[in-house]
């Protein structure tokens, strides 16, 4: 009797929890279909008016393109660097191993403003301010630990003798790396790449400090917009973000399988 009660309490809590997680997203999504001129929930009807309006705004399309570019630059840098770093971390007792581990904890300990100011100073010296691709570099520098984690988790699953096995079967070291190690950690690489891409496309605070009026990224554009009047096209922009995230999750499920996030470590 009391167990059943506990179960229902638990189910209730989970439902409530999920509702609170999903609710803001749902509200915005639904609101974006309003035909009216002010953002409202529930919407006064259903239309794609504001999505069409987005397509008519070159500033929006350009900001979206810049954000995608930031994501691509960030991912292109993070994949090789993060993969090699994770493999090295797993394989060798690195001299700077402790330093690297501290670096891996940084995203939790250093506020983004601090990283942002640091990057602003450095990029200013290099003359990189006000351009788009350096934002990708910045996103990579800040978020790289996520990439390393994703790959390191995959590496830790592997049998340390995998490359030895490949070598004794006839593969020289580079062959063994390309044909065995890399494919075996590919799930981690794909996961890390998608996470890095999404984080970079969403990157706001650091972008804000590195771009100027001509090079705003999508999150900065949204921020600038909400400081004036909040119109339903902002809800539509949010829907674009939700769409991007969904695409990433679908890709992840296709390529890797979402269960790797839920499954505990196999022996």
């Amino acid at each position: 009797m009391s167990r059943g009660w506990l179960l229902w309490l638990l189910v209730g809590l989970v439902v409530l929890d999920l509702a609170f997680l999903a609710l803001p997203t749902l509200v915005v999504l639904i609101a974006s279909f309003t035909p009216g001129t002010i953002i409202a929930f529930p919407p006064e009807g259903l239309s794609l008016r504001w999505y069409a309006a987005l397509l008519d705004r070159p500033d929006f399309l350009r900001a979206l393109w810049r954000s995608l570019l930031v994501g691509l630059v960030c991912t292109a840098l993070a994949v090789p660097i993060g993969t090699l770093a994770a493999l090295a971390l797993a394989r060798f007792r690195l001299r700077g191993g402790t330093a690297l581990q501290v670096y891996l904890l940084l995203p939790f300990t250093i506020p983004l403003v601090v990283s942002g100011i640091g990057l602003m100073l450095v990029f200013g010296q290099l003359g990189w301010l006000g351009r788009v691709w350096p934002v990708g570099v910045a996103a990579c520098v800040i978020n790289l630990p996520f990439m390393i984690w994703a790959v390191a988790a995959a590496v830790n699953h592997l049998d340390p003798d995998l490359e030895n096995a490949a070598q004794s079967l006839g593969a020289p070291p580079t062959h063994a790396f390309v044909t065995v190690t890399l494919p075996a950690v590919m799930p981690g690489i794909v996961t890390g790449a998608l996470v890095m891409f999404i984080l970079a496309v969403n990157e706001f605070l650091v972008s804000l400090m590195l771009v100027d009026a001509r090079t705003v990224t999508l999150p900065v554009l949204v921020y600038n917009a909400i400081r004036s009047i909040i119109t339903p096209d902002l809800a539509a922009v949010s829907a674009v973000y939700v769409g991007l995230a969904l695409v990433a999750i679908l890709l992840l499920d296709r390529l890797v399988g979402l269960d790797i996030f839920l499954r505990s470590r196999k022996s």
Partner: protein
Amino acid sequence: MVRLIEVSRRFGATVAVDRISLELARGAFLTILGPSGCGKTTLLRMIAGFIAPSAGEIVVHGRPVADLPPWKRSIGMVFQRLALFPHLTAFGNVAYPLQMRGFPRDGIADRVARYLRLVRLEGLGGRRPHELSGGQQQRVAIARALVFEPDLLLLDEPLAALDKKLREDMQLEFRRIQQELGVTTINVTHDQREALVMSDRVLVMDQGRLQQAGTPEETYARPANRFVAGFIGLTNFLPAEVVDRGPGATRLRIGALEITLPGATARPAAGPIEVALRAERIRLLAPDEAAEITVAGTIAAAVFEGDRVVYEVGVPALGPQTLKLYDLDPLGHGRRRPGEPVRLGWLARDLLTFTP
């Protein structure tokens, strides 16, 4: 033929492998037996070429292999944790060495299928390692190590992780495949039963050093030293003393018991020695039964193991230590209870003597 000549390997101050020499005929099955940490894996890694010996030479089929990296040696290895490639199917795993070693493409599928059949995995080639059972994974690893017909097969305790029943089945299975292909094999284990069951020759190692090399029978019947006597089989050790060393016979005192050993087995120097007596050489005597050496005792403990009972018997004449022995027919004459008086008997020649 495989030869190791005085091969050693140090890691800093520890000597993991200490001047091991061995010789193995083509097609033979050698098992290296020793406790965990005695240097077995290190020895195999040197033969496979993953690490270099600190000293000594390894020769495979007449050719010193010191200059050959692992991928140029013709050695198949089954690893302790198998090291199957997780992203490849069973078929892909077995095909891998053929692809890497440049076998003609159109022959690969047939060859892989043949080896999957050999290890009784036909029909399962499309599965990934995680979709196979432990025993099936073993078989993939074996097929992968053998498919390119290596000069030498190395097995690094691949059966240690399996449960008892499956392990015993796989021991026979390994032996069957090895004999079918006639591949020269070095197996490594800490399981004495496995060593005795599977091999033509056994090499016992402890702390990096060779303790004894011989056939399973020799190793069991005539252990070269106390370590081997204690490591293989269930053995009782008793402190003893040489009382008299005549020509052709030695008198020993074990506790209050005096025993004459026939000359052929007597080799102790005068003074304190240690006597070993295997559990299965001691018989529980029926009331009127006689034996060369008999002692009276009391059951201290009885452990029923199904096919046998292991008794511990206190024998006042031998001192405070109990003797372990088996009753191999417990259903035949019933189980004795602790406290019951018994008589034990054995032959003088079953006593092995070691100088401590």
